[in-house]
């Protein structure tokens, strides 16, 4: 996405290769673990691809009812689809929705079919799920077509603005206004607490706390509104939401079906900051990333969050480690470089001497390590004190780093961060700040070459070498050897290596939704996504 070549840091290619190979060594055992498990949410996402939607009068989605019913009778070890399509073939119900409704009151007998029934059920399930996958493909083509006809964002970084009223019908005019004011990307913040719901709410919602619920209908309404704005403005305005929390795979699926363009999708955020079980997270994450890969969605990772709990200088290398891990997990799931909005943030204490030079060094390091990834540059939050004037200056310097280091996605900082949810005027001032810096200094990427072995190069090399050291410590940790979870990365997460949070694999929310796959496990969605097949 970035056409400008950023300044060189003179990193040792051997060290960079080593960092990537260590990330692979740390990540691989976790991927193997993820492949050996499924979760209730993965199974529900599969049913959503097969077209099951809606909820009962209490708001419990039919996918939850059906997965719970199958789990209760035959377990999920073989996947939800085989017993479901076996029941449909046996005439338990005329269609999937009716089957889910009957099953919710215990009116369906499920079994694990064998022989010809097994092959027949699997085939029927695959054909139903393939329809959903083709719908995701069609939305990807629709996006490509629209970008080609109305035009793309005029330059990078893309300007990323947040909308969060709690009411989708309020969000829409605000998002359209933000697009008119210059936003290239609109993110609708989710309601506080949605990440811990083990179901996806249904329909258009008007009640949310500090954000709006992610629902299929809300996705559809907002995308339609932004399509309108895109045509009006002559540039495609992208829509972002959050594939995180307990329903990550389902939300990713809904995003693919409703043509969202970017999704927050970090590999460890839920574990560290929402206390979601690590196994659940890694299984859900892999599936959701496979969907994102297929849907042409750009993922945004959440490294900025580490720096809100840990010190941005001391912990700079943990950001690099997490970016490397996110890259490994993303690529393993089929995402391409242009889809990796790896996160990093401007969070160094401004009272420290040389804080700006260190920010530049860190941002350049990320740019240099991931030259083809868009990179998401996040504004200061921790050192925004309520002094809005100082905050405005800090945001200006944040924008300057973004301009000088060729970032792909720039989340616009608000001077009223930590004071109020942004006012209309806050957003306007913030966008003026971005525009001024981009127009005045955007070309600096051409001129700015940090001197050889100067402060910036040295600092970047130091952070990279600390990252390599940390990865080495992680992969050589054998303390968990011989236990149920010998994976060194899980041991590191248990020890509080990231974000200073300690999260053992045997604890956390959503663990009861994790199931070990049996030998005969089948999931047509995973198969279609991994094969790249459409039928």
């Amino acid at each position, binding site marked *: 996405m970035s056409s400008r070549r950023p300044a060189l840091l003179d990193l040792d290619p051997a060290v960079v290769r080593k960092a990537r190979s260590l990330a692979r060594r740390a990540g691989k055992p976790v991927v193997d673990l993820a492949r050996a498990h499924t979760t209730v949410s993965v199974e529900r996402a599969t049913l959503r691809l097969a077209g099951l939607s809606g909820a009962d009068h209490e708001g419990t989605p039919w996918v939850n009812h059906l997965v719970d019913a199958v789990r209760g009778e035959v377990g999920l070890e073989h996947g939800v689809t085989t017993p479901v399509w076996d029941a449909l073939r046996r005439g338990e119900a005329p269609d999937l929705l009716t089957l889910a409704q009957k099953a919710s009151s215990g009116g369906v007998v499920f079994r694990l079919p064998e022989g010809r029934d097994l092959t027949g059920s699997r085939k029927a399930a695959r054909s139903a799920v393939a329809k959903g996958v083709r719908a995701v493909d069609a939305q990807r083509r629709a996006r490509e077509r629209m970008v080609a006809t109305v035009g793309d964002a005029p330059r990078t970084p893309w300007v990323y603005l947040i909308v969060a009223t*709690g009411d989708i019908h309020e969000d829409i005019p605000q998002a359209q*206004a933000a697009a*008119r*004011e210059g936003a290239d990307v609109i993110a609708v913040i989710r*309601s*506080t*607490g949605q*990440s*811990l719901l083990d179901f996806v709410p249904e329909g258009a919602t008007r009640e949310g*706390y*500090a954000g709006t619920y992610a629902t299929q209908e809300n996705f559809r309404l907002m995308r339609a509104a932004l399509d309108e704005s895109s045509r009006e403005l002559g540039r495609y305005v992208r829509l972002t939401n959050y594939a995180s929390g307990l329903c990550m795979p389902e939300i990713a699926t809904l995003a693919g079906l409703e043509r969202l363009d970017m999704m927050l999708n970090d590999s460890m955020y839920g574990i560290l*900051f*929402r*206390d979601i079980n690590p196994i659940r997270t890694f299984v859900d994450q892999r599936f959701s990333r496979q969907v994102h890969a297929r849907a042409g969605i750009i993922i945004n990772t959440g490294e900025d969050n580490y720096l*809100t*709990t*840990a010190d941005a200088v001391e912990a700079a290398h943990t950001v690099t480690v997490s970016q490397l891990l996110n890259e490994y997990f993303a690529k393993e799931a089929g995402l391409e470089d242009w889809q990796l909005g790896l996160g990093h943030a401007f969070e160094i204490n401004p009272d420290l001497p040389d804080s700006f030079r260190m920010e530049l060094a860190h941002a350049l390091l990320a740019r240099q390590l991931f030259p083809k990834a868009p990179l998401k540059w996040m504004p200061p939050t921790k050192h925004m004190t*309520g002094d809005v004037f100082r905050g405005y200056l800090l945001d200006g310097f944040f924008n300057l780093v973004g301009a000088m280091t060729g970032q792909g996605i720039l989340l616009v900082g608000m001077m009223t961060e*930590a004071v109020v*949810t942004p*006012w*209309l*005027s806050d957003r*306007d*001032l913030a966008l003026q700040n971005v525009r001024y810096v981009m127009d005045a200094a955007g070309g600096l990427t051409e001129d700015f070459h940090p001197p050889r072995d100067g402060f910036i190069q040295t600092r970047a090399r130091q952070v990279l070498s600390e990252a390599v050291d940390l990865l080495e410590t992680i992969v050589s940790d054998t303390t968990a050897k011989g236990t149920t979870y010998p994976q060194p990365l899980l041991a590191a997460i248990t020890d509080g290596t990231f974000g*200073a949070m300690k999260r053992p694999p045997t604890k956390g929310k959503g663990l009861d939704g994790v199931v070990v796959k049996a030998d005969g496990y089948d999931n047509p969605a995973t198969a279609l996504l991994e094969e790249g097949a459409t039928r």
Partner: protein
Amino acid sequence: MSTETAGPGPIVRPYGDTTGDGMVQVSFTLPLPHDKRAEGAALQLAAKMGMSPALLVHAKAMGPHFTFFVVYGSVTHLVDVREVEVVEREFPLLGSAEVNQAIRSHLGRKLVVVGACIGTDAHTVGIDAILNIKGFAGEKGLEYYREMKVVNLGAQVLVPELVETAREVGADAVLVSQVVTQKDAHIHNTTTMSAAFREAFPAGEVPLLVVGGPRFEEGSAKALGVDRVFGRGTTPGEVASFLVHELVAPRTVPDPRGEER
């Protein structure tokens, strides 16, 4: 020309560059398109806010329906410092060694603290800053204090769960953090929590209830039904000192909940 040379007040006015000039600066948005009428409306608002004379220094259209203004002016209001009420810190600030020492010698057992973010609030940054060893502003959190037992329940804890845990572990104090303020969620959650504790425990045995968050009003503890409210920038040391002040130092009668728990 001012001839005052003594200390400030009791009557003061805002200070721009001359004593007594009363200068303030405000910015706001009006839902009007930017034209002469909108600028007049901004000046009218400034006059009603007590700014006289008011100087409209900046007006800018924000889209077709809104205008942003910056206004400077002298306020006619006077401030009487004698009428200002301040909540002074009612407890001495102790170092961690002093806190541990006080608990050891006066309580004779560990001080038990339960912390949580309640309701839908998922922002654990506040409670973590106070409780986690990592701490805040260079001060270690309460987990670091040898004489404290800290149970941090984390985010989105339900009130009954909090009450139950407090009872199970025999909490001396319950710390609740509330960041989300939309629709006054922080007020609502806090009053629900305090009511639940007062219902679940006999009078006199309710754990010390402490809430913290950036948007609580100073001095609103009573209205919220809690023992203390801490605002933005509170450090773990302040909280620890308060707990010692309330639970340890003044105790002249034996702990009704027994010696060892």
